[in-house]
């Protein structure tokens, strides 16, 4: 918990703010558009500063010197870059985070020293890619900078894992079956837990091994 400075615009802003406030963070918003800044000031219980967050003076005015974290959530990658660059190099803020629209900019931002990025495009694309025809598979969460993933899937009658004990499963490298939801029960599986038809299993996998892990547990589509 600590104070977060957000420079942003658009739809996300309101919801991100609320989320942070409910987690106990102190939030200050810097918004470029006057109307938007007034609207947000009325709707949210946070300090809203109307100004250009890519300018050092505006950031100072918004209290960046007391901020623990800076988020750049504008709709322009270049503005988000500049905000984070200023936060890091001019104001010494270690924890910065930028929204990135051009998916190629995720890697580029890292090269420029902005490590915390989120690419909406990449998230949506990977959901589209990984979405299987059967809605029984739900992809949840990238972990460790996207090198691992977490997915939940339902075991069908043809699934290799159905009927086997956890320790009998031939899982690829980096895969770990971590949760089972059976009816109303939530089970943390042990080696001798036998998997049953209809179990919703949650598993971690190495991003590069997604297809093989899915096959080994749930089977092919």
């Amino acid at each position, binding site marked *: 918990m600590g104070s977060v400075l957000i420079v942003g615009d658009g739809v996300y802003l309101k919801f991100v703010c609320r989320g942070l406030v409910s987690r106990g963070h102190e939030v200050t918003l810097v918004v470029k558009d006057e109307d938007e800044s007034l609207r947000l000031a009325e709707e949210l219980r946070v300090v809203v500063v109307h100004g250009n967050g*890519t*300018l*050092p*003076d505006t950031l100072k005015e918004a209290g960046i010197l007391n901020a623990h974290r800076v988020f750049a959530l504008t709709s*322009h*990658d*270049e*503005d988000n*870059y*500049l905000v984070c*660059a*200023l936060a890091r*190099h*001019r104001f010494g803020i270690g924890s910065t985070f930028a929204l990135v629209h*051009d998916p*190629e*900019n995720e890697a*580029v931002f890292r*090269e*420029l020293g902005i490590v915390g990025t989120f690419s909406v495009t990449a998230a949506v694309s990977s959901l589209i890619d990984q979405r299987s025809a059967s809605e029984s598979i739900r992809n949840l969460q990238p972990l460790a900078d996207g090198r691992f993933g977490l997915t939940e899937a339902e075991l069908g009658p043809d699934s290799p894992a159905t009927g086997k004990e956890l320790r009998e499963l031939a899982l690829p490298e980096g895969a770990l079956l971590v949760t089972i939801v059976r009816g109303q029960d939530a089970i943390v599986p042990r080696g001798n837990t036998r998997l049953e038809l209809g179990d919703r299993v949650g598993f971690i996998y190495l991003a590069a091994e997604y297809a093989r892990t899915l096959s080994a547990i749930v089977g092919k589509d």
Partner: protein
Amino acid sequence: MKNVKFIVIVGCGRLGGKLADFFSIRGDFVVVLDADPGAFAVLSPEFSGFTVVGTASEVGILKKARTGDADLFIAVTDNDALNIMSAKVALVHFSVPRAIARIFDPSLEGFCRELGLEVVSPVSATAERILGEAVHFLEGAV
């Protein structure tokens, strides 16, 4: 043999257009980038370089403009953040030896220099001065 350089110019406004014409007539290889295809109308009839339509915040567009082959990258759009980011990307990602960015807001000038960019502020410079500096670089470079 004359030392021909590869120059990428982002922003085909009055200044960008002037720079593009200047270098093209000099015999350098020029690619001009602008999000608005109509902007290239300012180029002189003698301009013999290439034009690329697109936004400079997209790495793909900079690739399309062959930024990786550039000797000099000049960002002169009217958007400071765009100039700064694209120039920085040119330096770091594309390893362009030299990048110049035009910055309108004086409070960002110092910061940009810290980022390793050469800055030109329209308040304190004229197009001629920029040209002078660029030519100086081109003639002095190995």
